[in-house]
């Protein structure tokens, strides 16, 4: 039992790391999907009489709106030109009881052709 008590914190820490890595990948998937959805909304915004970047903002969950960047690589909002949407979100892995933490940013871009 003594050995197990010694090893238990290590095992628990590994479990926490596993869970947090899983959550981070889930966030990355959500950021990637949000960028794709926003770019698609921007590409067809004209049909609803909307500004492409406003449509991109409206298409994503509220948590991504502050970091959403929308640009026109050809400096034109006319149909046939690209619109690029980038969404950035922070990630953070904290280990309980240990002074170890790691953080960074997840970023995903999507470029679609304005219809």
């Amino acid at each position, binding site marked *: *039992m003594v*050995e*197990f008590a010694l*090893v238990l914190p290590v*095992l628990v820490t*590994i*479990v926490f*790391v*596993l869970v947090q*890595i*899983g959550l981070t*990948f889930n966030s*990355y*998937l959500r950021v*990637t*999907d949000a*960028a*794709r959805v926003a*770019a*698609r909304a921007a*590409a067809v915004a*004209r*049909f*609803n*009489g909307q500004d492409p970047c406003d449509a991109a903002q409206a298409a994503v969950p509220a948590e991504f709106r502050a970091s959403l960047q929308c640009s026109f*690589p050809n400096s034109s909002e006319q*149909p*046939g030109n*690209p619109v*690029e949407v980038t969404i950035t979100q922070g990630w953070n892995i904290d280990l309980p009881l240990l002074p170890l933490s790691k953080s960074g940013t997840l970023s*995903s*871009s*999507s*470029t*679609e*052709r304005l*219809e």
Partner: protein
Amino acid sequence: MRGVRREDGQSLVFVIVAMTSFVLLMALVVDVGLWLQTQRKVQSVADAAALAGVQSLPFNQPQADADARAYAQLNSRDAAIDSVDFPSGDTISVQASERVTGFFSSLAGITSVTAKAHAAARTGPAELLSNADLQKAGSTVITPLVVNESAADCLPGCLGIDVTLRFDDADHRGSELGVMCPGGCGSTGASRNRLRGWINCSPCLPGSFGPAGGTVDVAAAPAGATNGGQVRGALQRRVGTTVILPVFDDANSASYHLAAFAAFVLDDVSWRNDSPSCRPDCKVVTGRFITYRAPGALASTDTGAPDYGVSVVGLTT
């Protein structure tokens, strides 16, 4: 103390089993997470490429191919386009892939995995249009002008090239151009003023048109309604702008049967009062057919309807 075994090392066995399980779980979480993330990204690349390429169909396949590859490149430097195919004249199919290197799977001898994605997009003719929807998307609207299917059949060869469309009041069916008047027009000043208003979009021509639930049989404007300065002046103010022309596939002196849509840039208008001496050149417009991406949903199945340049696009897989 026979029968009582020592407990030394019991935790060692448990820890070895637990650690092995955790390392395998870690491999699953990290590597599979990475593969899933890459797969979603590659799917996004393929979708964007197909939707960019389909916009040049059905008239320009080489351009569609080039656009698909260009947008794949814009979306990812790592993903590769394996193939761009055209299963039919109005459909583009894109295969994309990216190699993903795992952290833990390489220990098991799996150095990399290829994430693949497929996307197909189709273009189809717009089958239902209304000025209410078109106005949201810009200033291009339907005016009372209609074009004969036989004249629009010059597409795609005449795309962007000046063509002349004549309206002969004495031969609606044989004319390249026509003037419709939903609800019916007479030879009165009120009818001419109504046509002038519709041409200038003040107010725009009401209602929806097209075979998918809109008006398909529409009254033709008689000569008396299109003579005079109102229609001529209104058309001259349209010079330089794009209008949507419903395409008719049958007509008589009283009505047109609408089947599709074309987009036309008016370059010149020569509009005189109808008279036997000037027929069939009394009323002539010159301009270019262009392509126009219209609002609306793509029909769930390919109806095989002719595409005269006004189309909608969408992903099919």
